[in-house]
């Protein structure tokens, strides 16, 4: 049972925007950096966002990350069919002495 809660699914039409929330506690999100991963069907996860809002090279600026208090948010603008995937947040949990992933969110492009 993950300690980082994400909505099970979000959806929007092509070109629209979706946001995915990642909710935790102070020992997790508030005091540590959050990263976000995209898992396309049948492939390994891919890093989208690190240190709450930074994008690795090669990740388009359609993807954005933010954090406020005990929640983090991934935003995807200009939604494309190729964005259909599972998305996971992750952060260090000091109370568990463990890195933890969120419950995962499936993005569907209508």
């Amino acid at each position, binding site marked *: 049972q993950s300690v980082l809660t994400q909505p099970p699914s979000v959806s929007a039409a092509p070109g629209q925007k979706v946001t995915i929330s990642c909710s935790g506690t102070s020992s997790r999100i508030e005091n540590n950096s959050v*990263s976000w991963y995209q*898992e396309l069907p049948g492939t*390994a996860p*891919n890093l989208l966002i690190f240190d709450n809002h930074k994008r*690795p090279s090669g990740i388009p600026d359609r993807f954005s990350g933010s954090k406020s208090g005990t929640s983090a948010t991934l935003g995807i603008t200009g939604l494309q069919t190729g964005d259909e995937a599972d998305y*996971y947040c992750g952060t260090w949990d000091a109370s*568990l*002495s*463990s890195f933890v*992933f969120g419950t995962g969110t499936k993005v569907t492009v209508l």
Partner: protein
Amino acid sequence: EVQLVQSGAEMKKPGESLKISCRGSGYSFTSYWIGWVRQMPGKGLEWMGIFHPGDSDSRYSPSFKGQVTMSADKSISTAYLQWSSLKASDTAMYYCARQLGGSLSLGRISFDVWGPGTRVTISS
């Protein structure tokens, strides 16, 4: 090109041992931590632990401590994850992933390069 190449799919019986591998290339293998992540069928990602091939330092998730062992052979730039006695519940995809940046700051862990995964199936 920086990449992690993992060993092939495995089918084992309960009680057997197993060691899967993750070979790094295109970067200084001993300078980056390697993490291991489990994904059970139809489920989410679970962090198992992280290992430093340079000095063999490690951090295990409490959920996996004592259940698996992480190690590495620097001479062939390969990290390993091993089990001494497999259970059916070990059936999963296992990913290795490189920690972004050479140093480990627990509050800033993220994984920038992932292997393709090794599928492990345990069945009698």
